């Protein structure tokens, strides 16, 4: 694989008048796992949805998945290009069993993709048997929903996996299990962006890089030790160090980021 798995430059995005991402630059090389951390409301899930192409967001800049700029493409095309988002809040699909959904995913992926084998392995590894005949995400506990997201991820084998708080709502054993699954997926064909609030999961997955998002920007990046620093000091201290006022409602220097493109 040449070039990074995911490469985001000057990404600005928002909803209507509301500007949420104010110039995001981020690169995840193939074979690496990056952690993205940041306070509530800083724009992490927005980044996920903008990358995946959720219709209501407007976006500018560029976001390349395996070298292809995905901004402007329909959601399903981005998925087929190898982008996977594990949702922070997986959506319930009443009346559709997980097995039905997996069948449709297999069909969309096309034959010869190896989907069936990967799915069978993932069913066994995650103990998904008992969820296959249940409606997608309906009536599942928080942790079970996350497990189902990981299951779909493992079956789909994307190029870029964005895991939005895959560890929230998981019990201690499940965090370890999910982390182990992520580590096991580490491969030269995959780049992972792991969004988390807790350094707990980072005990089991060692990120190559840690990025901190505040108010719609990546404000610091560093090695795994950055997560420990965050844990010890909290976001306020980091913000103060950087001279960022987290209570500041809007700023208008987004244009400077655009100009840099």
């Amino acid at each position, binding site marked *: 694989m040449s070039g990074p798995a995911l490469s985001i430059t000057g990404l600005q995005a928002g909803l209507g008048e509301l500007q949420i991402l104010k110039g995001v630059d981020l690169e995840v090389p193939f074979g690496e796992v990056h952690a993205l951390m940041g306070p509530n409301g800083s724009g992490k899930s927005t980044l996920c949805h903008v990358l995946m192409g959720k*219709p209501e967001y407007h976006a500018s800049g560029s976001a390349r998945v395996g070298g292809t700029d995905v901004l402007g493409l329909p*959601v*399903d095309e981005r998925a087929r290009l190898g982008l996977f988002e594990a*949702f922070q809040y997986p959506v319930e699909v009443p009346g*559709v069993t997980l097995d039905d959904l997996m069948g449709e995913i297999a069909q969309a992926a096309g034959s010869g993709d190896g989907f069936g084998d990967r799915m069978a392995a993932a069913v066994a590894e995650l103990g998904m048997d008992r969820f296959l005949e249940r409606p997608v995400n309906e009536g599942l506990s928080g942790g079970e929903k996350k497990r189902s997201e990981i299951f779909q991820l493992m079956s*789909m084998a994307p190029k870029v996996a964005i895991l939005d708080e895959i560890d929230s709502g998981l019990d201690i054993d499940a965090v370890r299990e999910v982390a182990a699954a992520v580590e096991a997926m580490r491969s030269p064909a995959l780049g992972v962006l792991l969004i988390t609030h807790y350094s707990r999961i980072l005990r089991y997955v060692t990120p190559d890089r840690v990025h901190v998002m505040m108010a719609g920007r990546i404000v610091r990046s560093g090695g795994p030790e950055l997560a420990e620093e965050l844990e010890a000091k909290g976001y306020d201290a980091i913000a103060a160090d950087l001279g960022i006022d987290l209570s500041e409602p809007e700023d208008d220097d987004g244009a400077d980021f655009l100009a840099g493109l």
Partner: protein
Amino acid sequence: MLPLTQDTAARAATGLPEPVRARIEHGAALYEKMPMPDPRGEDWRYVELGMDLDDAALPEAPGAPMPGEGVVAAALGEVAGRALSVDGFTVEASGDGLQALHDAGAAAWEAAGRAGIPADLDRFAAAHHAFGRDGVRVDVPAGTAVGAPYLIEVQAVTPGSLVLPRIVVAAGDGAEAAVVVHYRSPDGVALTAVPHVEVGGGANARVSVTVVQTWGDQTTAISQHHHVAGRDGAVELAETGLGGRFARLHLTVDLDGPGADARVLGLYFGDRQQTLDYRAFVNHNAPNTTSDMFLKGAVGDTARSVFTGLIRIEPAGQKTNAHQTNRNLVLSDGAEAHSVPNLEILANDVRCGHGSAVGPLDAEQRYYLMSRGLDRAAADRLQVKGFFEEVLTRYRHQQLEPPLRQAAMAKYAGIIGGSAT
């Protein structure tokens, strides 16, 4: 064919037993007097009937049955009895406890307990009383549980005809039976059908009726039902409404005995210029009665659907537990769904709930499914399938699930690519 006159009613009555003749005379007098429904009346709100009964005529003999086995007959498998009604004439009837009305005695014409559609319900009901002269009766003796379902196929084939089949199900104390009714008529043939379905169960009786409605595209169908449950008895109606130009189901359920239970399931799908019109009245007339109505429908193209449901709890209906849910998908800009659930509660110690929704496909579900690589069409199709699944999986006769699912999804396939929103 015969015009809908007093004379015709009198001719229809000849040879029938005396009490039946009285019923016919009463109906004929009402039919003459009553106007066509007032489009401004509450009962006909949201719909345009677009036909006049006086333009229809009564067939003197049944036309040729439609070719081929119906989807319901094909899927149902073993039955306890079978009847075929064509143009209102029962041309076949076999099985224990099942008989054609025309060659049965006066007793067969009697109502099943209190179940019966009053002639003055509307002009269609009056016409049925005046001109109906045949039907199918199922009697289940007290204490008898009939395992396999009875299948009653009702066809209407003659252009311009008024078809008046009557189905009576009488279940004695502790009896159990299931009846499956399949309505069909050819596409392109303009005709009117007014079936009457009357179900009366004694104490502890359990009677389920499953209706599959695949009328042809020029059929006006006004179905009128009355289901009555006695003490600790249960009545169930599951209807799938797919066909017809204008198809109405007027349903009255009376829970007369303490502990009686009613369950109403519905799945409907309107496309092109169809109107599918549901009027459901569930009356809790005794204490500790329970009811659950669950109907889901979709409309596409310029189709229209109406659900008006009324749960009425009489002062005697203490400790009633009643629910009604009606959800509608509106799949095209030109389609319309109306959902009007109502409660009328005259007792003070009851549990009642109702839910109603009308809207397009869910954008969050679409986004989630597309994020897994499904294109928009596949994502939406899956969502529609899931929408109906919640009804289909509650159907008593699981063997009907696949063909009904397929029929609903075929209708969906027909409307997408149009003005789907």
